[in-house]
């Protein structure tokens, strides 16, 4: 288990080949409530997402990595306790 690495979320996004718009749509699809600008702020580490938001973003990214045949590289919060 590890702390959410907020400052590296955008690196994951780039590795996943997702545009900001695509990631936001996936985040929204999973129930995310933040705006696109807020999401960008989370990705760049400008603002810290809530634990829930971090987990939604992490899972949106991880599902993309899974689609690409990879594993789930983005860590979740302790609330999920999955890694």
């Amino acid at each position: 288990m590890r702390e959410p690495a907020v400052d590296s979320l955008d690196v994951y996004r780039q590795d996943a080949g997702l545009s900001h718009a695509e990631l936001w749509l996936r985040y929204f699809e999973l129930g995310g409530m933040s705006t696109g600008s807020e999401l960008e702020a989370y990705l760049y580490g400008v603002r810290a997402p809530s634990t829930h938001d971090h987990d939604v973003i992490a899972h949106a990214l991880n599902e993309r990595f899974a689609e690409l045949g990879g594993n789930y590289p983005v860590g979740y919060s302790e609330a999920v306790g999955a890694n």
Partner: protein
Amino acid sequence: MLGLNSKAGRVVVQCLLQRGLREDGLRRPSRPLRRTRLVAVSTDGTTSRAGHPPAQPQVVRLWVRPQGVAGGAGRPCENEGHGVRDPSTRFAVTTTFSGTEAVLALFGRAEHADAFILGATLDSAIERRPASMVLDLSALDFIGVAGMVAVANAEKRLMEIGATLTIRSPSELVNRLVGMMDIAHMPRLLDGATATGEHLGTKQKAEIPFGATERAHGNPSADFRRVTAMPSDPDVIDGALGLIVELARISVEGADGVSVSLLRHGRLSTVAASDQTVMDMDADQYASGEGPCVDASVQGRGFHAEALAGESRWPTFTPQALGLGINAILSSPLKAFDQPIGALNIYSRRPLAFGPKDQAAAALFAKKASVILSDAGAGASDTQIAFRYQEALRTRKVITLAMGVLMEREGVDEDAAFSDLLRLSLYHGEPLREQAHAVVRSARQPVLGPEFELDA
């Protein structure tokens, strides 16, 4: 303090109302300007003709705050020594002219919609042809991507008139955001990119000789971050693709020429190219309907012609390429929403020019270009995009329903219900939506406790 009817005030307001965002290289903000409220445009000192900085310092202030917020220009307050600012202001920019120097001080949060105002204010200041511009970011809390692009565009225009841009005292957070755009890095990029002529134009004709060998020495990942932070305006997208072409040309060892082909209106066309030879090569492939560029664009996978002299896959195109002195081609697919929509093509005069490292770099550049294209909605019709949004809404609804079921069933709150759902997804190794469907289906099954059993 002068009001909206002052000469300088009119200039700025007209600039805001009339200047199209495309001219600034920015897309129209998702929240139109009318939803914000221009609180005040004020000037201190004298006005001057455009192109002639005033002898006396001149100050122009522009305040914007969300519509519906009470208060007005009559209630300014001191703001930590940074001048007058209405406390309810979301974003403000103050322009001060002192001799040939323009100082723009930004306050608050420069959200996406504010980039319009920021870009117009920067343009307005640049039109006075200052020798130098200082951007004071010490009181700026946040700047969005569009705002950063406005600043980058301003720097480009300042360079064109031989002026300098200095960024003063950005906060740590803003510094990180601006750093991602790599604005300070831009002169080096432009040294290479501007040599290709109008690199922000749609169809480019380069002036760099085909096969020029100069290489940039920088951090490609920083360049990527800058490029991928671009917004979706078509001109900016083509400009970003042009930048990718240039970065690929100077980064991939064997590259003598690079182009980007895109499927537009059912036809392939070259939207960015490093030189005329490459444009001709692409055109030959479109005309003959064969070649690695065409195949990569249609089939969505990479094609590598290591040595054209021994190539048999494209009998019409290969002799034409050889005739133009090309001996190796590496075409990597570009995709938007996972659909092939074009190719990044790298050409070399040398056979066997592209080793594994070059192929990996080409794939990386293609991936970055694909992100830009996806952001732009390239290759996707309005119907397809609408369908994707509908699909997202349906999934979101099912997930919300599943969370409700879990909240009722487990007696937990919303966040805990989502965490439960997430754990289920991870445990089963299935997408969250599948688990949500399963939970909702389970709720449909009648669970009859003793108190609900029907009498026989």
